[in-house]
């Protein structure tokens, strides 16, 4: 319909309506705009403060540790003099401990998560009790796990002594709740329709979990493990109790060797009087950040390879 068929009165009404619409779509009230902008500014302030805090920490570590930055930090073990000392033994110690944590926490965490998500009947009180306990365990201070490790793993029933394995088991217990919770989220995120499709072709529940649910939830489980391992790398307090406190000058060669780890070494150096040790500790922080970034990048790359959508 073209406009020429309208009579003048209709045209007038149309233009009036258009004018009214334009007025309605006009600028927002000033007060609304100001409060919106204020909130935006507040958010910017918050994010800049967080970033500034992190940046200050990193810059401070770089400035303090600058005199000692160099490859020998990664290639030399602890020596009697700070000028000759590197972090090789602590790096290898950390890698051993973390390797042990991953080896323990992945099967335990994923197994527990599969049970809770796929098999446990929520109606039963013991399953609800288990769930509640796992959530609470995630909030227990890490020093408590250190005491537990000292009493049951280093001494007591397991009596392993102050060795790598004791550190791995203690840290694995510490991060296990985080891994279980993340793995449960990942398993829950697999749509029920995938499980139904699998069961409907005659697969058993185990085949469905093994071939459909687990592969689909690998990225989510990997994320949980990355977070957990990131936390485990930086843990100091429980490891002080289960043997990493000693001044170790050799590189551990197995899970039943004595050991030290990076954060404990840094803590140890900072507690000393000489300026050279303070510098070494700052350089140690850089080493730890590099290691953490390398491991996380690898894990994220691994996760993205398996990423899939539905």
């Amino acid at each position: 319909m073209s406009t020429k068929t309208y009579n003048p009165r209709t045209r007038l009404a149309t233009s009036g309506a258009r004018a009214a619409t334009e007025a309605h779509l006009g600028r927002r009230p000033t007060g609304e705009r100001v409060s919106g902008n204020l909130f935006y500014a507040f958010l910017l302030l918050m994010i800049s403060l967080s970033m500034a805090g992190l940046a200050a920490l990193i810059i401070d570590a770089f400035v303090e540790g600058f005199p000692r930055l160099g490859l020998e930090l990664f290639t030399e073990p602890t020596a009697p003099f700070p000028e000759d000392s590197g972090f090789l033994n602590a790096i290898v110690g950390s890698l051993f401990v973390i390797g042990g944590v991953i080896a323990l926490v992945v099967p335990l965490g994923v197994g527990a998560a599969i049970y809770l998500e796929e098999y446990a009947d929520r109606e039963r009180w013991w399953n609800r009790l288990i769930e509640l306990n796992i959530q609470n365990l995630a909030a227990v201070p890490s020093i408590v796990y250190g005491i537990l490790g000292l009493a049951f793993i280093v001494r007591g029933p397991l009596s392993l002594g102050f060795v790598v394995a004791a550190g791995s088991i203690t840290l694995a217990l510490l991060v296990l709740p985080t891994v279980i919770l993340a793995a449960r989220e990942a398993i829950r995120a697999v749509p029920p329709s995938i499980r139904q499709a699998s069961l409907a072709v005659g697969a058993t529940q185990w085949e469905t979990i093994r071939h459909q649910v687990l592969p689909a939830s690998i990225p989510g489980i990997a994320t949980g493990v990355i977070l957990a391992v990131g936390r485990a790398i930086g843990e100091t307090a429980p490891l002080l109790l289960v043997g990493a406190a000693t001044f170790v000058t050799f590189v551990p060669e197995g899970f039943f060797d004595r050991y030290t780890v990076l954060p404990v070494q840094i803590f140890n150096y900072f507690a000393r009087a000489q300026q050279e040790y303070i510098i070494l500790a700052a350089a140690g922080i850089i080493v730890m950040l590099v290691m953490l970034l390398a491991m996380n990048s690898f894990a994220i790359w691994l996760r993205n390879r398996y990423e899939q959508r539905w």
Partner: protein
Amino acid sequence: MTDKTTAPATHQTEEEERPAVQALPSVEETARESREQRGEPQSETERETLFAVEDLTVRYGKKPAVEDVTFDIYKNNITALIGPSGCGKSTLIRCFNRMNDLIPAASIEGHIRYHGQDLYDPAVDAVEVRKRIGMVFQAPNPFPKSIFENIAFGPRVLGTKKKSDLDDIVEEALTRAALWDDVKDRLDDNAYGMSGGQQQRLCIARSIATKPDVVLMDEPCSALDPISTGKIEDLMMELKKDYSIIVVTHNMQQAARVSDMTAFLMVQLDDDEENPRGRLVEYNQTDKIFTNPADERTEQYVSGRVG
């Protein structure tokens, strides 16, 4: 049971001959012609009972979802379950391969006999049932894997391990689902790259790759456009030669187009006007249901006056 007077004798439980079927009044001539045009020879007398549903009641918790359903489903037929929302069609179809077992609150009374064997006998393993009775779901739900893996998963868990055998099975299933020509060059691509209609045909191919006896389809076209729907319907007519199909549909034209037998379910309240539950109102040959239903409620529903 309500209004069962015209349903073909449904109380028989053994595989005896079914004289009641022969006694049915002949279907209207027009309907018969349309059937013959579709190339479907009528062989009502030789129908073999596949499922005998006896006094089936399914409850979720204490609430009945479907109540007192009794009817027989025949081999190599397409049986349509129609009715308004909430009448228990989906609940009913999920009983045939024991998918309701997955809902902890669901409980079942009565019997479904499959070739004479009670599916809900404690000695029967639900996994064994599902190997013989496949299912296609409302929304396409391919596995987040390659097209090949989607089809091969079923045969593989049922014991086919050799790659060459799996290749053959995948090609046959995709060919039967009219999908082979579309996807033969990209079998290793993720199934999520296919269109919705293709995904649903992939799901049908997946369900027939295990060579089941029956294929259950729970509103297989409700998420699809009319062209994809047409393709799926053609596929159902094709598959009917080798499989028995039970299909739940909201689309009455679809039931009329593809099915041989139609069961009409409806929501009913109890005497206190409470506890809605599904009941079977009428079950008969599709032509009869759509052209000359015995029950007034069926007529109102199929003519679009209610529901």
